[in-house]
């Protein structure tokens, strides 16, 4: 069998795993394929967590970090799952720095009140995504992690170094605020 035939077989079984193995060997073309397949999810996660203005930089940082850590990918979980968790870690690791850079960490209570306007666009989904950005940082992160990314309160509490009770109450406040947006 030739290498190309074997690679075709491998790709048919699990293209992500095959490309991850090739990329771990230094194949940047394989890594680019991984980037193409996963960039939308990473970019959307970055945008929702820390804002559109930082999403490009964070996405690049996530993929550079993934390249550096590919040797640690054991294939026990899907590559997308591994990358997603890595992205969360990168994003959470950068949030303090980004908040300092923009000289604010919008956890002030008034942010909840500012988000009472109804959608101005017919595209509710787009508006909903935009509305997220007006939530206070902490509530937005919890809402994204819980209601969009599917993490449990206990996991979120560990990630953000808060109590599960705080996670629950912040989530409820975020939902109550966003509810006005959808009415």
């Amino acid at each position, binding site marked *: *069998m030739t290498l190309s035939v*074997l690679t075709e077989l491998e790709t048919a079984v699990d293209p992500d795993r095959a490309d991850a193995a090739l990329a771990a060997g230094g194949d940047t073309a394989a890594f680019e394929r991984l980037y193409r397949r996963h960039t939308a999810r990473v*970019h959307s996660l970055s945008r929702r967590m820390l804002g559109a203005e930082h999403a*490009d930089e964070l996405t690049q940082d996530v993929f550079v*970090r993934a390249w550096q850590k590919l040797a640690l990918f054991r294939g026990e979980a899907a590559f997308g799952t591994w990358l997603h968790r890595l992205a969360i870690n990168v994003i959470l690791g950068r949030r303090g720095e980004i908040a300092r850079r923009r000289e604010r960490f919008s956890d002030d209570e008034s942010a909840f009140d500012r988000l009472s306007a109804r959608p101005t666009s017919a595209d509710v989904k787009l508006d909903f995504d935009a509305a997220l950005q007006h939530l206070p940082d902490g509530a937005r992160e919890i809402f994204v992690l819980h209601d969009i990314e599917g993490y449990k309160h206990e996991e979120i509490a560990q990630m953000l170094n808060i109590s599960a009770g705080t996670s629950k109450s912040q*989530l409820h406040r975020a939902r*109550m605020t966003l509810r006005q947006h959808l009415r």
Partner: protein
Amino acid sequence: MNQHWTDRLSEYMDGDLSFTERVAVERHLADCAACRETLADLRAVVAAAASLSDAPPASDLWQGIAQHIAPAQPGVVAIGARAAQRAPRQFSFTLPQLLAASIVLAVLSGSGVFLALNGSGRGPAVATQPPSNVRQVDTRASESYYDAAIRELEAALEQSRGRLDPATVEVIEDNIRIIDRAILDARTALERDPSNQFLNEHLENTMKRKIELLKRATSRS
């Protein structure tokens, strides 16, 4: 509607309340139209969040990534202040190593077809897992252990091959040849880089797959 009940609605919706609390909330909801409306709104928020779709970046970010990961660039300078402190990546995989990895995938496909066609059964009484302490202490010890298991299974298969369908024997032998090639490639690569963790694990996994194939084959005879 009052704040006490409203504050419990998210937990109620998420199933985070105790049985007693849930019953109390449901009793209140039965009598409170405002809370029922709020609950419906909260459910709409959760549904909207779940239906959000992912969008790619407006511009292609690959070039920015590529310039930070190019293997030819010594001392990679990564993005951002934190990333700049990271150590450069160091990998040195060869074509045989990649070939070995690819072969295993091919074997998995081939043996998967074989096993699917022939079903599963109990293998002979050969211990195919080294003691966990051996594996943790010395990969070479695990390798010897697997070698012994393979020899025993090969002997069992040889004795019983007359009872197998010739076409099945051909499939088994084809797969074993591919696995043996993968094992040889991995061992060759390990001679040059004995401490490479990926290669050590790869060799171990390949040997395990050979054992599994032999076990299934002997169980059919």
